[in-house]
């Protein structure tokens, strides 16, 4: 949800800027559009659809995640000329690296998980097991490879919505925000910004 909020914020900001400048919002020209949909299907089945995600074994879910993210990396690479796409590629590559290094899931420590669900629920889970039906796996920091790329950041406690995210997620959110905001900025002004 937090990444969709970044997408929505970028789009609305771009629309507002274009309206303020009295010019139309440019629709991003995306190549190989179909690839994004095809690449997402394995994750849709393994993590998002309640009817299928509970039936898919963990090993297959991990394979689905790595396959899907590799295809999405290809899709992003094909569209690398879009503004902000390099940030997205960097974020995706960082997430994919830590996921592959830890057996196909994004690691999360029991301490970080305790901020999302009651501590008793975390204690009842085995270290090394999946964290619900999501993309995360519960791992001790000492057993985590590339721990600095794992889901280790949290929003402030006072925020209405609690979520943990990785460094890669920050790059992805920044990339999509900039990509969609950029569509509302006139080309001449954009060139000026690039020179700064």
């Amino acid at each position, binding site marked *: 949800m937090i990444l969709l909020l970044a997408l929505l914020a970028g789009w609305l900001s771009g629309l507002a800027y274009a309206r303020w400048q009295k010019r139309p919002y440019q629709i991003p020209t995306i190549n190989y559009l179909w690839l994004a949909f095809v690449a997402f299907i394995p994750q849709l089945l393994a993590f998002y659809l309640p009817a299928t995600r509970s039936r898919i074994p963990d090993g297959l879910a991990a394979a689905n995640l790595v396959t899907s993210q590799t295809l999405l990396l290809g899709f992003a690479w094909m569209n690398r000329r879009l503004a902000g796409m390099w940030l997205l590629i960097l974020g995706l590559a960082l997430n994919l690296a830590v996921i592959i290094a830890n057996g196909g899931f*994004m690691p999360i420590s029991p301490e970080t998980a305790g901020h999302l*669900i009651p501590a008793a629920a975390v204690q009842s889970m085995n270290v090394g097991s999946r*964290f619900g039906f999501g993309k995360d796996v519960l791992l001790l920091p000492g057993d985590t490879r590339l721990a600095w790329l794992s889901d280790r950041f949290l929003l402030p406690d006072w925020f209405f919505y609690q979520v943990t995210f990785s460094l*890669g997620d920050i790059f992805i959110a920044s990339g999509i925000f900039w990509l969609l905001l950029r569509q509302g900025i006139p080309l001449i002004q954009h060139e000026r910004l690039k020179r700064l």
Partner: protein
Amino acid sequence: MKNKLMQLSLLIHKINRQHIQLAFALLALAMLVLGAGAPDSGGSIGK
């Protein structure tokens, strides 16, 4: 009823090719960020 049909017809005419292109582009980008990211809110625990 006739008025409602006319309103619907007007609305459909307003949805042009560009709106559909924008919808597909946003949908593809949503797939990309949802698939590329791995944030977790713990929402799937126990469901």
